[in-house]
């Protein structure tokens, strides 16, 4: 019985992607769509294989992942650290409130001109943009997680005269962990989404570069390969973090 249910579940997962591929192929074969605008799935697949064989795909993916990780790591450390301070201290909350509220809604892309001025066109400006994409989700969720600690549990710690350090480490932190993990996942996904924008800054490597270069050469197939790669890697990173979250937050 289970096997039949599982089978139907798999069918439901696959039915849409397969339909999309079929419709796509039909549109291509019947020439309804201008080949410059959209190449067929076969061509895309060929480009994919070519890129792998030429080694360029791995190199680009590697570069992008490296940049994302660097920006993400800095954002995580600073986001969690500042988030804890602001979350625990009403004073810091009020002091930083206005500046954060104004900067947060600015999309990382809008920072590109300033980033180039400040950091040049090397790696640093790209990492800065990626950092911005990751920082605010992490920071906001850390603060929120700390604010949402169950007051009833705080009272118990108060009654047991728990010293402040132990209280933060053993009550506030474990309690906020689910929120912090959510923030980290959103942060990584935010960082990854900024990679294309960041690599527009005069890059010579990376998946974002690969896409914008291919666009200039009207290599739509390469563009699509790049986009799909971005999607798949982004999803994989999220799944890995979700597994991490499940293993850390066991309650």
């Amino acid at each position, binding site marked *: 019985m289970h096997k039949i249910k599982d089978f139907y579940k798999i069918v439901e997962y696959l039915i849409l992607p397969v339909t999309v591929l079929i419709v796509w192929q039909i549109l291509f074969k019947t020439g309804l769509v201008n080949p410059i605008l959209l190449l067929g799935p076969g061509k895309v697949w060929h480009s994919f294989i070519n890129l792998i064989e030429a080694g360029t795909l791995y190199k680009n993916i590697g570069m992008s992942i490296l940049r994302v990780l660097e920006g993400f790591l800095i954002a995580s450390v600073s986001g969690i650290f500042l988030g804890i301070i602001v979350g625990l201290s009403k004073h810091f909350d009020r002091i930083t409130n206005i500046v954060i509220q104004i900067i947060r809604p600015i999309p990382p892309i809008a920072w590109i001109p300033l980033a180039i001025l400040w950091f040049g066109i090397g790696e640093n400006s790209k990492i800065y943009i990626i950092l911005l994409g990751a920082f605010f989700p992490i920071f906001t969720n850390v603060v929120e997680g700390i604010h949402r600690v169950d007051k*009833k549990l705080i009272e*118990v710690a108060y*009654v*047991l005269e728990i010293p402040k350090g132990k209280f933060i480490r053993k009550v506030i932190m474990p309690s906020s962990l689910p929120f912090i993990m959510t923030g980290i996942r959103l942060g990584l996904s935010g960082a990854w989404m900024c990679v294309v924008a960041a690599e527009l800054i005069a890059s010579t490597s990376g998946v974002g570069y690969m896409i914008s270069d291919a666009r200039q050469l009207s290599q739509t197939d390469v563009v699509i390969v790049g986009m799909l790669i971005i999607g798949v890697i982004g999803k994989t990173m999220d799944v890995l973090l979700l597994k991490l979250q499940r293993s850390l937050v066991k*309650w």
Partner: protein
Amino acid sequence: MNMDKLTEDRILIRNLNKKFVINRKSVPVLENINLHVEKSQFISIIGSSGCGKSTLLRIIAGLDNDYEGTVEMDGEKILKPSLKIGIVFQEHRLFPWFTVSENISFGLRDKSYSEKKEIVKQHLELVGLSGFEDAYPSQLSGGMSQRVSIARALANNPEILLMDEPFGALDALTRIQMQEQCLKIWETKKITIIFVTHDIDEAVYLGDKVIVMSQRPGRIKKVIPIKVKRPRDRNSYDFLEIRKLIYEEFFSDQKEIVNYVI
């Protein structure tokens, strides 16, 4: 020091008054509470919902300083919570990320690893949960969690234990078992207990005296000493007589309300 006191008062409350401000109107919650609790006594406080009995307990615990009057323990004002006063709340309030053992030993200070282990073991035995050291709260039933909560409060060796309707969320059968456990703990540790409940049977079964509180604003209507010998029989004549007394306290309360309506 008061030299005229013949008995040792653990807790002394004089002229306690408290108001809440709701929508800019001041609502009296506790009025003119005068209460003294002697060492190793078991006091039951009974009242209907909203009569302020939980508020009273929180004030004694040091969780609430916004009142008029004097609340003292051993002659000193209670200004904030201390490890000398343990409290068990209505909810178990166990930390879900800690095991039973970690929860119980959480408040312990200056104790070695083996000392902590021993204390946890003793207290689990006391509440009838030996062997559950490594369980997580999510794996326990309501009654078991509440027992762990009691063990946690007792592990720090408080001189006074406050219990705020601790068995309210449990089914009737578990409640009776827990009452037995409670008395066992009281007799073993010789601790002073102030027990708040809305269950008349529970109040009479457990307490050396029962403090009957009126509806809001909470006043002490009557203090009824329970001179029935322990172990008490819930169906004995003496028990039922006192139970009746207390029922009448509440009925007369309601009769007053009916008069006002007419």
